[in-house]
């Protein structure tokens, strides 16, 4: 459906109460009478309808980034995602969120305000239009070089130096080993995502390592490989050449994940195995970090 023409006015007059109603409407948390009222208004009030479309995007982004309460998340999955159109939007949002995450930190000089004067030919990392006085007064430093490439190179060197120093300081101040460990046991699903339940894990404050005990499928192999991917499909941690251990008569693997690599999100752990030769994916485990 072409939604580009729908949000055509430049201002919305929407109250906080209306926004809350739209949230409840989209998540199926409304009684029938209220629902009819909202829908009648959606048919005739352009502002409310435009807000609904914006709010849908915002809700989906919250879900993708793991920023929803448990209750809203459950409503989102059981009600909002019943619609194939909403599922399509979610798939788009997953890819879009990944794109934005990758793009952030790559400064460009392409931006200018719609009604602003043309941007200065001298590159400026402030993306606000150059004539904006508020942007100027907020700036408390300036780039040393007039050529942006040199500025970016300088910024990169500074960042690398800071990260290096911080890493060395951290290494010397912390003992080796997993530190405070939080352990959870996961059972396998199939290779596709639909297999297996999604277990929610709440990491206690101060946890250094999440240790996952992965119960292995019945067919045994000498070597295993695990790849942890987040909801955007980005590989976070990979471990190779893992060997199984016995847990209450069942074979399992221990998979340690530094807590610093995890954020509230839904993760998929892809398990591959090999007898000889190449690894072949045999199962997956899904969990959610709250």
């Amino acid at each position: 459906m072409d939604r580009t023409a729908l949000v055509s006015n430049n201002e919305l007059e929407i109250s906080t109460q209306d926004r809350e109603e739209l949230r409840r409407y989209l998540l199926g948390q409304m009684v029938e009478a209220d629902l009819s009222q909202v829908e009648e208004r959606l048919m005739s009030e352009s502002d409310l309808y435009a807000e609904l479309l914006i709010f849908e995007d915002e809700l989906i982004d919250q879900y993708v980034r793991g920023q929803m309460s448990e209750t809203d998340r459950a409503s989102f999955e059981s009600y909002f995602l019943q619609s194939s159109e909403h599922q399509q939007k979610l798939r788009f949002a997953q890819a879009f969120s990944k794109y934005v995450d990758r793009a952030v930190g790559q400064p460009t000089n392409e931006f200018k305000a719609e009604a602003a004067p043309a941007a200065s030919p001298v590159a400026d990392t402030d993306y606000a239009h150059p004539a904006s006085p508020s942007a100027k007064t907020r700036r408390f430093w300036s780039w040393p070089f007039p050529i942006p490439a040199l500025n970016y190179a300088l910024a990169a060197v500074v960042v690398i130096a800071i990260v290096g120093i911080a890493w060395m300081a951290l290494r010397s101040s912390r003992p080796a080993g997993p530190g405070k460990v939080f352990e959870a046991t996961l059972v396998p699903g199939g290779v596709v995502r639909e297999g297996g339940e999604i277990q929610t894990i709440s990491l206690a404050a101060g946890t250094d390592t999440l240790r996952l005990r992965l119960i292995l499928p019945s067919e045994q192999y000498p070597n295993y490989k695990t790849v942890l991917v987040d909801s955007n499909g980005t590989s976070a941690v990979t471990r190779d050449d893992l060997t199984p251990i016995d847990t209450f008569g069942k074979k399992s693997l221990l998979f340690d994940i530094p807590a610093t690599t995890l954020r509230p999100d839904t993760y998929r752990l892809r398990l591959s195995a090999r007898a000889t030769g190449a690894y072949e994916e045999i199962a997956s485990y899904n969990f959610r970090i709250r």
Partner: protein
Amino acid sequence: MNKNWLLTKEAFDALLGWLDPNREVAGQKYEDIRRRLITIFSCRGCAEPEDLADETINRVANKLSAIKSSYVGDPARYFYGVANKVYLEYRRRPAPEVQPPPAPYDESVEKKFDCLERCMQKLTAENRKLVIEYYQDERQAKIDHRKRLAEQLGIAINALRIRACRVRASLQECVANCLHEAMA
């Protein structure tokens, strides 16, 4: 559900005439009503929201000669009343199999990502920058960032939301077309 109620050209013209005497304005109103019906059916979890919206419109068109002279008020509300009946009939049909939520990771995300990269390049540089700036960060940082962005653009935060939503919608449409072409 009676799917035999087809919209003839005469019925469609009469429907447009009821919506507005100006045919161009009437066409816009028709499109607007149809989009809203699709959204409502979609929000109610219907599997075929577009079919149900078209069914609603067909029924209104077929009743038009009977109601045109007596109905008072916004035609959109009348469409909504008929949509409720269509929805009740839909509910009586055997429930379609509920699809599981999309996987946090699947191959289509990767394909979509390729298309997305292409579609981002089709945006104007200004809009490309805007959506990346608008949708980055999380929680409070995101709110603060958007306030700054609106300030820098010299527009209200709501106007910024509308612009970002519009660009995102055009991107989503572009990606859908790209995927469709890739599969053809």
